[in-house]
């Protein structure tokens, strides 16, 4: 145990996700040995991010304004919505430069064991966005794990309506991987989702 404020700093850092007591101690001593200016800047950024950043009123993505950059961009196609679990998934998909539609961030996945049901996610807001008929395709891009698949199943059941195409991201082999090392579940999915290469 350290005295007073140092221990307080270690305890606070230790509350962050993925930071254990040893890492918290290492970061605390790094901060102590760093120039004052850097620490002040870090403190300012932390305060600013809490003050300025909020969730987009339309899609639920993080934004510094009422609506995010993607929802405000007139060049994006308003006929396709990609549904993701978290705001960080938007960044991952944007990095592909393959998708030019809009997003909808659910804020998690259905996980009864953690007490998270459909009402705890932004599903009602998604249905409101689909009400005017502009959207013709919903791409469900929830994580390919148990909770993500169950959320996709629930959404599919809810979204089936005339004039709306509901699609799910493909699952399968990672680029650059070896077939012999693929597990049977992933390989099975790759077979299920195989596509025609030539007519």
């Amino acid at each position, binding site marked *: 145990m350290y005295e007073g404020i140092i221990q307080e700093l270690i305890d606070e850092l230790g509350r962050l996700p*993925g930071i254990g007591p040893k890492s918290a101690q290492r970061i605390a001593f790094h901060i102590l040995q760093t120039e004052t200016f850097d620490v002040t800047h870090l403190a300012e950024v932390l305060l600013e991010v809490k003050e300025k950043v909020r969730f987009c009123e339309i899609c639920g993505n993080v934004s510094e304004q009422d609506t995010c950059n993607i929802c405000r961009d007139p060049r994006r196609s308003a006929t396709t919505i990609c549904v993701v679990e978290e705001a960080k998934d938007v960044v991952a998909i944007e990095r592909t430069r393959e998708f030019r539609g809009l997003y909808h961030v659910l804020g998690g996945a*259905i*996980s*009864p*064991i*953690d*007490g998270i*049901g459909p009402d705890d996610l932004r599903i009602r807001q998604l249905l409101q966005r689909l009400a005017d008929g502009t959207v013709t395709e919903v791409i469900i891009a929830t994580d390919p*794990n*148990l909770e993500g*698949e*169950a959320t996709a*199943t*629930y959404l599919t*059941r809810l979204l089936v309506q005339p004039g709306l195409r509901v699609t799910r991201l493909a699952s399968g082999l*990672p680029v650059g*991987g070896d077939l012999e*090392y693929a*597990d*049977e*579940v*992933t390989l*099975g999915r790759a077979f299920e989702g195989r596509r025609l290469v030539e007519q």
Partner: protein
Amino acid sequence: MPLYRDEAVVLRTHKLGEADRIVTMLSRQHGKIRAVAKGVRRTASKFGSRLEPMMVVDVQLYEGRSLDIVTQAESLGAYGADIAGDYASYTAAAAMIETADRITDDSGSLQQYLLLVGALRSLSRRERVPGLTLDSYLLRSLSIAGWAPSFVDCAVTGAPGPHTAFVVQLGGVVADSVAPPGTPRVDPETIDLLAALLAGDWPTVEASDDRARGQASGIVAAYTQFHLERGLRSLRLVDRR
């Protein structure tokens, strides 16, 4: 014995660090095991998908000081994908998994393991209505744990039934002479259904009507939550439509 092997059903996973997971499993011989699976969140992981909840695996572990380490995992039953494909089955399975997690400990219970694997297999094959499979699982799981309810003879005096007063705190149906004032009465059809769910008498279960099923599920939920002391979070989210 630093290295050991067992069959297990994955109950829960928690993220650890950058790419690892803590996996909680109910094993055939070693009871509940908590182990670290390294690198399984990476797409190149050799056994990440095998350690998803509701998967039954043949697993090799290395004994650690606080948590064991998963060194190999082979799939024995990939029930998760089929269960996740039906929302009612998924919510029922989640309630089973939470119950198994709460009711078992480090000491092995082969019966609990076999019951859970059987119930998950049944859900994945869509053999029964998911809500009924769940109710049957809950009653049988509590019975194995030593909290078997009585649906025929009085739970207090042993007086031969049938009785219609059900008191969760007293362990099942009770004779009128010992029933606390104001005890609600349960339809005889519901009592029959509860007994059938406990015994695994599926022809009787499947012949029951919606009213009896609704009453039975409420009684099973109350009985389970009473004995597990803390409420099951997943139970209120079970899709019984």
